[in-house]
């Protein structure tokens, strides 16, 4: 069954062009928490569905909209939160990678003055391909 598309605006089909076996990602959700204007480092939470026939292996994220963008994972063990860069994330065909607070997130450093403007993000895949999208982050507390 098809997943509900919460935000039609951001339901963008991303296809890794040139790959024989396509990794196709659909952004089914993209949100960010509101933050004080001085905050330079924020986390965005995307949900990516692999609609393709091969596994998507994401190794990095880039964006010209920010000073730096990276995939991170927070783990909480015995009440201690640790955040580390995530260098490889796999999404099997038909699976959804749901980024969420206290888990995987897209760490954005150096927010543009208008944080609500659409941002361009490129996801780097293990096979060297790159898939790029423009998305609007919904602001939710």
């Amino acid at each position, binding site marked *: 069954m098809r997943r509900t598309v919460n935000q039609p605006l951001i339901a963008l089909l991303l296809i890794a062009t040139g790959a024989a076996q396509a990794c196709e990602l659909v952004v089914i959700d993209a949100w960010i928490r509101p933050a004080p204007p001085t905050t*330079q480092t924020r986390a965005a939470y995307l949900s990516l569905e692999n609609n393709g026939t091969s596994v998507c292996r994401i190794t990095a994220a880039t964006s010209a909209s920010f000073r730096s963008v990276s995939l*991170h994972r927070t783990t909480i063990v015995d009440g*201690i939160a640790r955040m580390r860069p995530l260098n490889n994330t796999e999404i099997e065909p038909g699976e959804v990678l749901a980024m969420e*607070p206290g888990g995987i997130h897209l760490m954005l450093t150096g927010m543009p003055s208008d944080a609500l403007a659409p941002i361009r993000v490129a996801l780097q895949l293990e096979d060297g391909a790159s898939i790029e999208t423009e998305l609007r982050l919904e602001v939710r507390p």
Partner: protein
Amino acid sequence: MSDTPDLQPIPRLGLAVAVLAAVAGVLTWTLGQTSPAAISGTVLAQPRALPEFALTQHDGTPFGRSDLEDHWSILFFGFTQCPDICPTTLFDLRRTLAALDSDGATRPMVILVTLDPMRDTPEEMATYITYFDPEFVGLTGELVDVQTLANEIGVAYAYIAGDGDSYSVDHTASLFLIDPQGRLAALFNPPHDAAVLAGDLQEIMR
């Protein structure tokens, strides 16, 4: 017997005794806690007094142990450049206070103690903490003073180097409930659920 020198067993025995004592101590401490089924956190059977401390409030005024007296408080340790767990916790706390308000219950003072006073000046703390709720309090100070309080409460932290001169802070993301006598009364491990936490707080603060 081996040809181990005679004195060898003595330190070994000493070590064994020390280990046993430590285990017994941990057991005693653990058994001393009570966690009623209705409470999601850990309530200390014997509230633990906090030491004196001298930190600076986000408005620049001093803040010490006596400022924790005569009201309940929730302490959270974090830092303003923390992108994920700190905003998540502060929004959880905002929702918790809203739940307490709607029940007509007492609001505890919510306090964020920065573990990154190198970057978190009082001005930075003011902009940050009041964004979540104008009544929230941010505390900063000398690194040694912040760390001493964290150590006393049992907060773990580590500074992790990132790209260039950037760094992040691993830290205990638990909430520490301080009673009106300025004593550690209970703690709650993440993830937090605002409705559950609000219920637990009302149960404990009665």
